[in-house]
């Protein structure tokens, strides 16, 4: 993340309530252009509502947001020109065929009939749904439908794309494909705001992450920074000669951090938050003539990060609250 880069999204104290329920309690976001930025949180944390405000679908109660330099309320049409939305519920028309869906969007975006048709064919081909292009979307598999949904967002390449829970309910193979598409998009210069409740997904894709819980950002940083902020990573070494363990412990204690002896007499672990210190520790051991069979550095998982930040596990929170998909967050 380059902090000097122009910001794709800049939100200040964005808030939204539905009746008595506060969905978003004041969110600040600064998303640089050209990256995948993850908004991570359990169901009901306010992710979808945040996206809906940024995508100009609902107006915030208070606070403000600029997307690609345009105010989401005062310049909503300018924002709509530049963004596209891939919803939690695949927002394609089930009663039309895949091809008709793409042609429809092409026409609505201003393509002429023939151009819209050609674009639809190109996208169906690229996303591996050409053979099913003439079938009604309601007969599609989950993975095909999700790919069509993403293709529908790319009929005209957006500068910013909102990906809301893009892999919820997908099998691992389809999930990997969605991830590959997301990486390809960023490689072509599109900024992606990724909302997810999967820690692994944010870790895999995102350059920066905002962790949100109960409508607020509770932590922000790169995946590495977030893990480091918990600070419970460790350097593990396995000694060639168990007899060198006391000497090795002394070296690591000095160079790295608190040493925790392992049950195995040939092993040692030292608490360590960053890889530079770990490398130094390994180098110091070599200088002291202590041979290593192997060594490893592990970092806390984002699950641990979430637990440390919120006091409750992400999965517990998700299981404990009813799922809040797009429509149900809205009063009818």
């Amino acid at each position, binding site marked *: 993340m380059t902090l000097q880069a122009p910001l794709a999204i800049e939100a200040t104290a964005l808030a939204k309530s539905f009746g008595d329920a506060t969905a978003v309690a004041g969110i600040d976001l600064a998303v640089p252009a050209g990256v995948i930025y993850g908004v991570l949180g359990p169901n009901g944390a306010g992710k979808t509502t945040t996206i809906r405000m940024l995508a*100009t679908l609902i107006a915030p109660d208070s606070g403000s947001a600029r997307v690609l330099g345009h105010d989401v309320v005062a310049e909503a049409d300018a924002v*709509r020109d530049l963004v596209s*939305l891939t919803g939690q519920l695949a*927002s394609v028309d089930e009663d039309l065929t895949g091809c008709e869906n793409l042609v429809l969007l092409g026409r*609505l*975006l201003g393509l002429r009939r023939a151009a819209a048709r050609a674009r639809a064919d190109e996208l169906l081909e690229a*996303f*591996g749904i050409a053979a099913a292009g003439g079938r009604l979307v309601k007969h599609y598999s989950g993975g095909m439908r999700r790919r069509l949904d993403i293709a529908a967002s*790319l009929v005209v390449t957006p500068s910013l794309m909102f990906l809301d829970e893009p892999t919820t309910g997908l099998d691992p193979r389809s999930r990997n494909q969605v991830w590959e598409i997301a990486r390809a998009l960023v490689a*072509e210069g599109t900024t992606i705001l990724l909302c997810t409740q999967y820690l692994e997904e944010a870790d895999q894709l995102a350059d920066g992450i905002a962790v949100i819980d109960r409508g607020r950002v509770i932590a922000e940083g790169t995946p590495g920074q977030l893990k480091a902020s918990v600070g419970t990573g460790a350097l593990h070494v396995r000694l060639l000669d168990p007899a060198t363990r006391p000497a090795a412990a002394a070296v690591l204690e000095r160079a790295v951090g608190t040493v925790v002896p392992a049950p195995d007499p040939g092993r040692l672990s030292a608490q360590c938050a960053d890889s530079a210190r770990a490398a130094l520790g390994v180098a110091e051991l070599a200088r002291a003539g202590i041979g290593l069979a192997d060594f490893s550095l592990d970092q806390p998982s984002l699950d641990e990060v979430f637990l440390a930040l919120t006091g409750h596990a992400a999965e517990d929170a998700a299981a404990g609250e009813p799922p809040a998909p797009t429509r149900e967050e809205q009063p009818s």
Partner: protein
Amino acid sequence: MTTTPTAPDAADTAAVRRAISSTPRPPRPGPLSAALTFGWRGMLKVKHVPEQLLDVTVTPVMFLLMFTYLFGGAIAGSTSAYLDYTLPGLLVMSVLFTTVYSGVSLNTDLTKGVVDRFRSLPIWRPAPLLGSLLGDSVRYVIAGTVIIVVGVALGYRPDAGVAGALASLALVVVFSFGLSWVFCVLGLLLRTPNAVMNAGFMGIFPLTFLSNVFVDPATLPGPLQAFVEVNPISVLATACRSLMAGEPDGTAIVVSLVVAAALALVFLPLTTRLYRGR
């Protein structure tokens, strides 16, 4: 899961990259073009989900057959005399029932989230609404034509011939444009498509029966007769009868059009406001 084994069921990342790097952004479409595109969508739905059309045409045809043969003799002395009286009214009923589906399909869109995508597009805001009504008008014409054709098959012969039938159909379709906004408001206020359907028919059903569609109001008790005579559906049915008979009733036609315009004037802005707020 329906996947076709012959096709690669996978995204081709290189092709995806080519596809997204190759598009210049076209200029925004005009309001009319956007609305017509939504009209096209409505027609595709008629094509892919013909059951909906079946629902709204079968019921009036059933009524046509039942009333003509079951009650026709008792009400008007003969089935053919009753057919003459009731067919223009059934045309009104058939098409007005179809307008409920405008609200149902709007609500269906909202519950499925496809509207979110439309609303994230830089298009003229009312285009999806106007467009779906354009598509619906195809349904209105089909529903009306079915009734007229079945009527003719049963022996109905309008004095004003084809011109009279077309004029009646046109009037009913125009009236339906106004009325459909009422159901669009219902579609935006209620939670499920089924609720819209139930509420819609709960309103339109008694209103249609408490009109002169089936019986001459002269036979009704005083207060009911007073209501039936001011019921806009009676006025519309009277206008259609007069057009079919080749003796246009100017007052009834104008009142029908004024009611349609008034409904649109009140409920169209309400619809766009509610739609924006969703």
